[in-house]
């Protein structure tokens, strides 16, 4: 189970890197979505999945009987998903706004902030 999850999240990270290295904003977003889900899978795998016993404490007892499933990773992932979702929504809107304002989806052309105004007497070369 953990091996499969490890391979899967590895493949997802590889795919997301491939997407993010492209210069197209939309591809970049998909890469980001994929990467955040890959990380969630890592956390899921971290909780030793595969144990089917629910983490319930029998009536009258203080601790669960025997080894039970770990529910904490689910809580962590839920938090991460909610936060990640909010961030992604913001990124989508920001990308859309940037596309509207700057008129391009090519990340190479979006260097308005880094371009040095020529009339300021600065060196012509734009810093990387």
């Amino acid at each position, binding site marked *: 189970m953990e091996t499969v999850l490890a391979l899967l999240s590895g493949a997802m990270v590889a795919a997301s890197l491939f997407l993010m290295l492209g210069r197209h904003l939309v591809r970049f977003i998909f890469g980001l979505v994929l990467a955040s889900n890959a990380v969630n899978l890592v956390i899921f795998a971290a909780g030793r999945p595969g144990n089917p016993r629910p983490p319930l404490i029998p009536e009258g007892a203080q601790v669960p009987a025997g080894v039970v499933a770990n529910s904490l990773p689910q809580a962590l992932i839920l938090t991460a998903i909610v*936060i990640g979702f909010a*961030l992604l929504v913001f990124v989508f809107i920001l990308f859309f706004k940037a596309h509207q304002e700057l008129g391009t989806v090519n990340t190479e052309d979006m260097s308005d902030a880094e371009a040095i105004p020529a009339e*300021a007497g600065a*060196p012509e070369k734009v*810093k990387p």
Partner: protein
Amino acid sequence: MSGLLAAPIIVPFAVAALSLPGGRRPHFQSAAALLGAAAHLALGAMLLQRVHHHGIAVLNVGNWPAPFGIALVADHLSALMVLVTGVVYGAVCLYSRAEIGADCLQRGYYPLLHILVGGISGAFLTGDLFNLYVWFEVMLMASFALLVLGRTRAQLAGGLTYVVINLISTLLFLAALGLIYAMTGTLNMAHLHLKLRATADLGQVAAVSVLFLTAFGIKAGLFPLFFWLPASYHTPPVAVSAIFSGLLTKVGVYALIRTFTLLFPLDGSGLQNLVLAAAALTMVTGVLGAAAHSEVRRILSFHIISQVGYMVLGLGLLTPLALAGAVFYLLHHIVVKANLFLISGLTRQWGGSFALAELGGLYRTRWFGALLFFIPAFSLAGFPPLSGFWAKMILIRASLDAGHFVLAGVAALVGLLTVYSMTKIWNEAFWKPKAAATPPPADGLSRVSAWMLAPVAALAALTVLIGLAPEQLFQMARLAAEELLDPSAYVHSVLGSVR
């Protein structure tokens, strides 16, 4: 009693909620902000007082005992950081009253500012790694929105870089979190300290620690991960870039210091040389980048990077003196850097531009303003008797003591180059005659209200005060360094307080 720990987090959020409906009532919003900032500052001072006299303070949120619940922990470092956050918070709230326009106010400038400060305070106070992630996100979300609030082209393009690289850093942090949880089964930092010390699998620990180093290195602006910073920090309103420059990268530095003393002690981990090399390169590239630019806020942005190098140098050396120097540097730098950004706003009001070529002659007309610039600028460069002199002296002394003569030389040289950039701004903006060709500032632009002057003067006074009487602050920094180097008190306070 221990509610004091949660208060610096609760107050900014409460003020944010209060000022959320007041978008069209700027006076109400600004009054609420000033009250909130004053309360935050007072709480920070009380917290430091408490930590100083009664030792490390711990609050188990919801009475869940550590390591099961989330613990808030304040040692000297955390308390000092919260206090200095309050200082910058207050200064920026004062400055915002005059600078921030009605359109930004309507888009929720003040609530975002409060949420940002709440997130920063949370990051400084939490004792739980996953909780640190959540505070980082709170902080980032607010900073994203603040950065692009004006919706100009430069802000959108700069914001894009900033948002994307910070999201990637966050993902690295989250992955590292998952892996460390898989290894140890805990996320409480004090508990992690014990568990990681007992782990046999050093390879795994090293891999995860590098993930943390990269994630926090991006946030701190460490070489070679800093390129997002000078691409974005000069675009938002001055008040926003002041609080960013003062506090955001420093949260990254704080996280680096915390993780690499408590979780993965640097000595003997093999990472020490890497951290030292990164620190030296950060100092040098930052200061060279600053030398190449000719716009006030870009120069200052690159100086943030070179200064972060000094702090990480202190962390990398890991002697008590070096770590105390890093903490001292951190505190001095936050005050000075935020002030310099605020002053860049003043020079813009007076001279009509951020570009050095268009500025000039300000010394003739604004000698008081020139003095206000002179103090933080030459403190940053390390002139005695200003605060930066002591900060640099402690670190250079510590590197000499540790036998790292090259690093001491680099630190001294970078200080010299900082003088060069600061002199450049001084010469161009204040000293040289104003170029006749530049148009006079637009109507009302040259008017600087007392709301803008007061925080600048207060921060400059604080810089002089630290410079003239560094002993008090150095003692605090030394105590913080001792706690960091010997985390047994920290661990005992968190885990021993289980009742």
